[in-house]
């Protein structure tokens, strides 16, 4: 007992002796994932995009709920069916003192989709658009068809300075030479694997952030990240491991910040093969794929106790889901709520579909991608077994899982029959999951890229395509709602289970505006003082 007291005493003494944050306004942040480059156009992926947001601005910015805000563009509006006009902010200076004009935007859009060796490019947001500079502060963007997502797309591409010149390389950005933006922070240095340092841009055109200097430290291991926070080596960490949340809540010197993300965790079912590889009759014989029957899909949804998943598996840190995005996002329909848990009803529905004794199924899922992903698979399997669908569980590392789930079968078809996946909507509206998950798989037109169950319904397809060509927000909202209601409510194309809630932790007195896109943006960390 004595030792115990001694240790606690030491811990308290350590907490008090450790310097308060803000030695000269420095904030040290422990990050799970490090960017792969400083070049904002090199790698279109979470860690890079969130880091780039500190020193580069975009034409349009997104707030914590992914609502659009003026960035380098003051205003935007469609001026014809197919043309959008962006009015640029005047008097903005780059970190090197040069003026921001439409030339920089033109230069950026020329470069961004064509960075050599890019493992994931920004072409997604820029192709099919032509850009015209009207004057130094006016830009016209034209598409072939009406395109409502223009402002959202413009919120994805960081604007660089034209002064860095043609042929600027990714290496020039990494060394800091070309890392010149208009963002609230200026880039100082990056030592890969060790630290990334930025300093406040005193000439920032918008509200200045609180911290003068920010040091990001990549600490991939979860326990080590928590320990670094407790030890006072970092002031703030992201991706708090779920097992530590309860403990940290009880910790005196720690403050947690949580927020629902735009990521829905859902189940995808094979809806394109009569003979599905991981569906068997009881005893292992062949069976015509029961997942083709909407009643079976409905029964599975009813068999899932979402409250239990949220309370037990997720320890309360999740929100049960009935559609593609949580409340408050664009395209959410008021007519769909999370399916109520009803095992008896599920059994009846199974019997009605001709499977009174159920069948055998295997659920596949990743074990290192989403919060508690493997445990969710196990819970779902138990729940399904309870209504007679004897379900085996197979989970694997994401590095192996996603390839097999997307194109592991013959002819690059999805390999599995029943899988757990998640989808974070980068655009903050339901058109993103609708077009990728529920639109018929159409390689040539770029629809259904992640439709791993190959759900297909012509009516839904038409609604999605119409929505993607309807600029008027109100009309588009109606189309998206209708498409969601049909694809999930009627067809049960996917089965949403819950929306992920993310947790950040900081020293006492530091709070964070949790972002729906799961990004860690140091401008959102504020102290109570």
């Amino acid at each position, binding site marked *: 007992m004595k030792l115990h007291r001694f240790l606690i005493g030491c811990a308290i003494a350590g907490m008090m002796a450790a310097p308060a944050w803000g030695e000269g306004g420095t904030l040290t942040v422990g990050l799970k994932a490090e960017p792969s480059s400083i070049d904002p156009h090199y790698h279109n992926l979470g860690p890079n995009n969130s880091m780039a947001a500190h020193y580069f601005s975009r034409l349009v910015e997104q707030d914590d709920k992914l609502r659009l805000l003026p960035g380098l563009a003051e205003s935007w509006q469609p001026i014809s069916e197919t043309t959008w006009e962006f009015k640029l902010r005047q008097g903005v200076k780059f970190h090197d003192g040069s003026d921001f004009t439409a030339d920089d935007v033109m230069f950026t859009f020329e470069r961004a989709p064509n960075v050599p060796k890019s493992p994931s490019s920004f072409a997604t947001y820029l192709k099919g658009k032509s850009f015209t500079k009207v004057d130094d502060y006016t830009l016209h963007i034209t598409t072939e068809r009406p395109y409502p997502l223009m402002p959202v797309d413009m919120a994805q591409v960081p604007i660089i300075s034209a002064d860095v010149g043609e042929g600027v390389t990714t290496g020039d950005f990494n060394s800091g030479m070309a890392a010149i933006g208009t963002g609230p922070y200026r880039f100082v240095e990056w030592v890969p694997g*060790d630290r990334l340092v930025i300093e406040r841009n005193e000439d920032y055109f918008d509200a200045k952030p609180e911290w003068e200097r920010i040091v990001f430290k*990549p600490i991939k291991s979860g326990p080590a990240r928590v320990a670094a926070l407790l030890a006072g080596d970092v002031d703030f960490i992201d991706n708090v491991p779920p097992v530590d949340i309860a403990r940290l809540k009880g910790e005196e010197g720690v403050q947690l910040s949580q927020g629902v993300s735009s990521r829905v965790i859902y189940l995808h079912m094979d809806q394109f093969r009569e003979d599905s590889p991981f569906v068997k009759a009881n005893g292992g014989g062949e069976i015509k794929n029961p997942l083709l029957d909407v009643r079976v899909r409905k029964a599975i949804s009813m068999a899932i106790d979402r409250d239990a998943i949220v309370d037990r598996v997720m320890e309360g840190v999740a929100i049960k889901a009935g559609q593609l995005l949580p409340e408050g996002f664009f395209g959410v329909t008021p007519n769909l709520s999370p399916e109520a848990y009803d095992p008896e009803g599920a059994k009846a529905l199974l019997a009605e579909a001709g499977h009174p004794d159920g069948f055998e199924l295997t659920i596949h899922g990743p074990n290192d991608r989403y919060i508690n992903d493997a445990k969710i698979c196990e819970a779902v399997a138990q729940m399904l077994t309870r209504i007679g669908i004897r379900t085996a569980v197979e989970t694997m590392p994401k590095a192996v899982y996603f390839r097999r789930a997307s194109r592991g079968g013959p002819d690059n078809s999805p390999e599995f029959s029943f899988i757990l996946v998640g989808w974070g909507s980068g655009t903050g509206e339901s058109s993103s999951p609708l077009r990728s998950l529920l639109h018929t798989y159409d390689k040539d037109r770029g629809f259904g890229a992640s439709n791993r169950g190959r759900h297909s319904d012509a009516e839904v397809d038409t609604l999605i395509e119409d929505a993607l060509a309807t600029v008027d927000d109100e009309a588009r909202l109606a189309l998206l709602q209708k498409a969601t209601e049909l694809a999930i409510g009627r067809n049960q194309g996917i089965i949403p289970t819950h929306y992920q809630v993310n947790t950040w932790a900081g020293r006492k007195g530091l709070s964070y505006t949790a972002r729906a896109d799961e990004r860690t943006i140091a401008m959102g960390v504020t102290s109570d003082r």
Partner: protein
Amino acid sequence: MTVFIIRRLLQSAVVVAVMSLLVFVGVNVVGDPVDMLINPEADQAEIERVIRDLGLDRPLHEQYGYFVVNALQGDLGDSFIFGQPALQLIIERMPATFELAIAALLLAVVLGIPLGVLAGLRPDAGWSRTIMAGSILGFSLPSFWVGIMMIMLFAVMLGWLPSTGRGDTVPVLGVEVSFLTRDGLSHLLLPAINLSLFKLSLVIRLARAGTREVIHQDYIKFARAKGLSETRVVLVHLLKNIMIPVVTVLGLEFGGLVAFSVVTESVFAWPGMGKLIIDSLHELDRPVVVAYLMIVVLMFVIINLVVDIVYSILDPRVRLQDTKA
């Protein structure tokens, strides 16, 4: 002699070639890096572009062919994630790992030899049993767990040492080192102890066994009979003789320390090669993994080659046997 060296060189080349095939194929049949790299919002056209750009659409033997041709010119490929030459990424992080490995080795020697000698001189004393029991713990506790416990105790509870990262570095001959600054040294201490625990236990055991053997030798008895002080007997006559096996083993173990400090580096977020390799494995950055393993293979092959040649110089029997065979 020349024949012997040529033969050995050829054999080494075969080993490297076979290893390159095993490593390349092994790494390339697991998963698909594209899904790790690409933004989920990307459409099929973009996914195909990336697959094409990375050369993943080509058959495996063709990819291997490219790899071999480039490797022979000293190019082990570009990292999928960073877009920089894999070799450069590894070399950039080499100093950090070497610094950690050398610090761990020093700790093992400086603490291990005295403890082992003490335990060997008084094998029945209580503290000597404690030392030996401790060395068993050092062997058997997983270093991941020990690392976390050390962080909990020294960083979180006591607040004496930082828990993560490398701290301030200063350049020495163009290489960044951290042991010359106070901050860097404090960052170095915990990971170095963590990494050294296993080697420390090994050295203690070797030193103890050596001491037990040497202490009964005639020359020790003679030294005592001559009336030399116990200090001199131990420090000069005994120590010199137990050092031979210790140095041999540590020389070989150093390669292992450098190549496989993976666990310690990830627990302490030490920006070295080990952390790079484990991150690359997670994200399926194949060129980096392959390059890293090839460097390790090359390192061990060279060490063994040198050892063989040295043996053959020292012991003509090895040479003769070999030419006959």
